[in-house]
């Protein structure tokens, strides 16, 4: 049955409702019409557009849901960022002595702020991943 692999990928990557409402009907049309040649390519293009539209819808919804946990995410990010910032100061060669004596010459402030921004961004990503709404992890059952 054509489109089965698309259904499997969509079922795996999208929320159940999103898959049922946005992608599944597009694949069902493709299977119903069983097009050939150029029409088949157009159908595939339509399915991919539906898939990416559904994925965008899901990601926007997930990001909105993440804002409900913004407090916990902020705390987790701050803990991680503090830990890695401390490690950066210890092992980067900047040395604790220069920081302790506030010898901030030679662009040290700029570099430190840049490093901290990168650390915060990475920590925010990993923290967000912890709170990201769950997806399926097992093989889906797609009926033929």
């Amino acid at each position, binding site marked *: 049955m054509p489109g089965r692999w698309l259904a499997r990928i969509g079922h795996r990557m999208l929320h159940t409702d999103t898959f049922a*409402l946005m992608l*599944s009907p597009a694949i069902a049309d493709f299977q119903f019409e069983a097009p050939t040649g150029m029409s088949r390519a157009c159908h595939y293009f*339509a399915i991919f557009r539906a898939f990416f*539209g559904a994925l965008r819808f899901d990601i926007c919804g997930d990001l909105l849901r993440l804002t409900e946990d913004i407090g916990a995410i902020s705390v987790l990010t701050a803990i991680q960022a503090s830990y890695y910032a401390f490690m950066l100061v210890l092992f980067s060669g900047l040395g604790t002595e220069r920081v302790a004596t506030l010898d901030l010459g030679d662009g040290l402030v700029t570099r430190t702020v840049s490093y901290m921004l990168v650390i915060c961004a990475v920590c925010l990503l990993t923290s967000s991943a912890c709170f990201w709404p769950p997806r399926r992890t097992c093989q889906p059952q797609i009926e*033929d």
Partner: protein
Amino acid sequence: MLDLLEASERYGLELVDASAGRLKRGSVYVTLGRMEAKGFVASRQEDRAPGAIGLPRRLYRPTAYGLKVRDAYRLLRDALALKPAEAK
């Protein structure tokens, strides 16, 4: 889209065909899905014969709320289209 659905239940592809090119195959289901999430349309899976293969297709119909929103939108659009002298 709600206008097209008002007469009867339709499949997504029927909407594409009836829209004379205004709706595209790739975006019609995403739009319908968003409309269903907002309560403008409702859908159900088609009744299938035993032994039918493939994924079931989906039929759409407008909700009463959706039709009210459409009517309100029409009123607003008409009001905005009026010239100031006509609106008085």
